[in-house]
């Protein structure tokens, strides 16, 4: 039995459908990320869980209790903690008052409140700043106040709405790990919204990829990266070369498919879904840039070997990028070491059939 069940959730703003009948189950203690471009419905889904939006249809069940379908439960009664994108730390209250705000409505004694505040301040490493006003804190510190405020009541569910997007790059990377270890240590079920795929990969147990109100794929980071459900997911998570073509032959024994591509004859690919793979179908032969091998001389293999010209090269320190032109199709190649090729050089690309897959 899942701890949070999102069932058939439907929400629209005027004519625009923001969330289109999605289903997601979240296990107790799990850290789930809603990932997608802006306008995909991830924030709306999160706000529906919080109760800040009222869905038109469907239900959200938290710990066995219906939040929507039976009787709409107000956000103040849901027992959730939430970190807002812009922190929403109240500027007219001191740090400590921001944090204990919600505790005051729960009938704790003054002493209990103080000890809880001290604990959580220690947890987020803000001890000593309790008497400051938010205006006197840095962005990172305000972020911690927001986190402390969300955690102090020991919520059943923690919701995080792009909590790191307003921080600078270095701090953002550090906070990813901090948030993850903190939440895991406390064992809180959490839902995290982001449009940053790297952030999602670092922080999540499972990722839900969303596109225009629909769930496209749910899986752990490895599954999402290695077996993307479709072209959208493959493109959104990491980089991917897409070569459009048509299936000419299916080889059921090996699980391989032969694709006639527009740029240079046939390619051998894997298929993720044999049932949907039929001859004549328009597909994309896809391969990650780091899986393409770049060769100066033609090797023995003949399958998936193409000749092209280097159009662009870029040196980025820990790796190199090449864009190789094969009869008008640009293939992006990433190599982890330095290669002496210059723009205009003729090279061979080996698109390893084990790493090529077709996407629909």
């Amino acid at each position, binding site marked *: 039995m899942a701890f949070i069940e999102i069932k058939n959730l439907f929400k629209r703003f005027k004519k625009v459908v923001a969330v289109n009948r999605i289903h997601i189950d979240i296990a107790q203690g799990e850290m789930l990320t809603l990932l997608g471009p802006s306008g995909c419905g991830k*924030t709306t889904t999160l706000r529906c869980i*919080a*109760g*800040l939006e009222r869905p038109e249809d469907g239900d959200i069940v938290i710990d066995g209790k219906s939040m929507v379908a039976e009787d709409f439960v*107000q*956000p*103040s*009664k*849901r027992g*959730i*903690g*939430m970190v*807002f*994108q*812009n*922190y*929403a*730390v*109240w*500027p*007219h209250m001191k740090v400590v008052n921001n944090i204990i*705000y*919600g505790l005051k*409505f*729960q009938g704790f004694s003054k002493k209990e409140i103080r000890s809880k505040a001290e604990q959580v301040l220690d947890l987020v490493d803000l001890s000593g700043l309790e008497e400051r006003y*938010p*205006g006197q804190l840095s962005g990172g510190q305000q972020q911690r106040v*927001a986190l402390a*405020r*969300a955690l102090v*009541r020991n919520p059943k569910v923690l*919701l995080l709405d792009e909590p790191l997007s307003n921080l600078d790059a270095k701090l953002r990377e550090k906070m990813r790990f901090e948030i993850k270890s903190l939440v895991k240590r406390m064992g809180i079920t959490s839902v995290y919204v982001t449009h940053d795929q790297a952030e999602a990969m670092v922080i999540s147990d499972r990722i839900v990829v969303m596109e225009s109100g629909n769930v496209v794929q749910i899986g752990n980071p490895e599954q999402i990266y290695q077996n993307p459900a479709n072209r959208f997911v493959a493109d959104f998570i990491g980089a991917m070369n897409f070569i459009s073509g048509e299936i000419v032959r299916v080889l059921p024994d090996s699980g391989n498919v032969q694709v006639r591509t527009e740029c240079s004859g046939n390619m051998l690919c894997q298929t993720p879904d044999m049932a949907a793979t039929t001859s004549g179908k328009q597909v994309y032969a896809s391969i990650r840039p780091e899986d393409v091998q770049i060769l100066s001389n033609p090797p023995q293999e003949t399958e998936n070997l193409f000749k092209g010209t280097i159009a662009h090269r870029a040196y980025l320190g820990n790796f190199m990028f090449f864009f190789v032109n094969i009869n008008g199709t640009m293939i992006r190649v990433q190599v982890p070491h330095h290669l002496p090729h210059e723009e205009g050089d003729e090279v061979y690309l080996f698109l390893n059939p084990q790493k090529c897959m077709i996407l629909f």
Partner: protein
Amino acid sequence: MSRGDYSLSTFIWLIIAFLVIYPLSFLLVESFKIVETGGFGIGNFIEFFHDTYYLKTFANTLWLSTLVLLTSTLFGIPLAYILARYRQVGKTVFTALILLPIVLPAYAGVFAFIIFFGKFGTLNLLLMEAGIISTPINFIYGLHGLVFVQALHMLPFIVLSLAAGFTQIDPAFEEAAEVEGASGFRRFITITLPLCTPTYLAGAVIVFLWPFTDWLTPLILGQVDYLPSIAYINIAYHFTDMHRKYMGIVAVVVSSVVCISLFLLARWWVERKKYTGLSKGTTSEGRVIEPGILLKTASYLYMGLTAFIVLLIPIVLGLSAFSRRWVFSPFPTYWTLDNFRVILAESPLLIQNSFVFSAVALVFGIVFGLPAAYIIVRTRVRGKDALDFVITLMLAFPGMAVGVSYLLAFWNTIPLATHWMIMPLALFARRLPYFLRMAHSSYLQLDVSLEEASEVSGAGKLRTFFYISLPLLIKGVLVGVVMFFIMAFQEISTAIFLYRGGWETLPIGIFLNWHRGMEFGIAAAMAFLMIVITFILLLIISRIGGSILKAAWGPGSR
């Protein structure tokens, strides 16, 4: 920073020195003059603060200010909340009606309310006819009437500033409170309202200062024991009794000091505690909610009632203007155009004066305001902040202080007060900030790179201003022009001290006709005429773009 900027800044400072600093310091010096000996000292002030009567007027004024602020706040909070947060039809119309008193002259309101709420006014007569009461109720004469009239006049400032707060604060602040377990009224009290205090205060200080400025409303309502009213009486009626005149001047200075200090205090506090800009929400449209049917009905009733009271002003004055001998009957019985015939026959000069003085003041305003805005926004000339400060300070100065100081300063030493030019000059000095604010805020919105691109293309500063900046600023400038004109057109507090026979303006005509007692219809007709002219000018503003007005006068930019 070019030499041109410096000479421009010098030119502006010279004007400020001549028209603002010189007369106001003259007033200050004069207040220390001891009449009996001809020397100087703090005797006048000591006497003022030892005299039980003056102390009483001072306390009265403070008490009135407090009551006016409390009343307008109490009635303003729900109005602002409804206008800012509820989704409903007819919002624009209601907003316009509720904000109307801001542009209607205060004295127009008093006249209308006397006719409607007076002892034998429409309401009392209707109630008596219906048999609900047997003797008339005193709705309007007295402190309660004064509070009502002034609070209604200042209500727009409260509503505007609070509504700005309600719409500008990041919705996430309130959502966070909801998630934390505080909903409804508790959230409103602990989060929403405190976060609105800075914007509220910006409007509240203007409201609080109004009783220190408005001498006419108490006078018309038969209440003279207030600082500005007693100052007016002492200076205007007792000019032969030098002692009383100087006590009047002291009263003006005391009022001004109170106004300036509170204004600065509020400004400092608002600057320190600006919450609205602190974090930018992702949902910028604020929180618009669909109220339940009960709340919705209640809010419509409430807005309707407020709008009705505001609309009484033009309606009652209109009825009065087109009738004669409207006494002891709830509605006029004898319709006529006589009042307007009298105005046009006997005093077309008043209308002409009003237009000429305001127009000349406007020309001064533009010639001064545009360069001043340029200096403040676009250059780094030293002292530009001081310039901004001095000009903004003029917002807080009571009109009477400007009038009296001009009378004193331009009498013997620089005998300008004998020439009619003193009238537009004084109007210009008094309404200075109104135009500048507009130009200022439009200038801030103009991307500097547009001007830089012109300069790079080879146009000089002056050419850039006329070919690039001015065409892009023109909307804001035009709204500023009309706003300035409305304000100058209605101005009475300054002009009343400076006019001589033949220089009377329409507001002065209204005052004199009321003062003579018998010609109430003519005063009402003049006031009605003013309202009509104001409406026409407002219509022009709304055609140009009302949003510019909001940008310039929203508390956020102050």
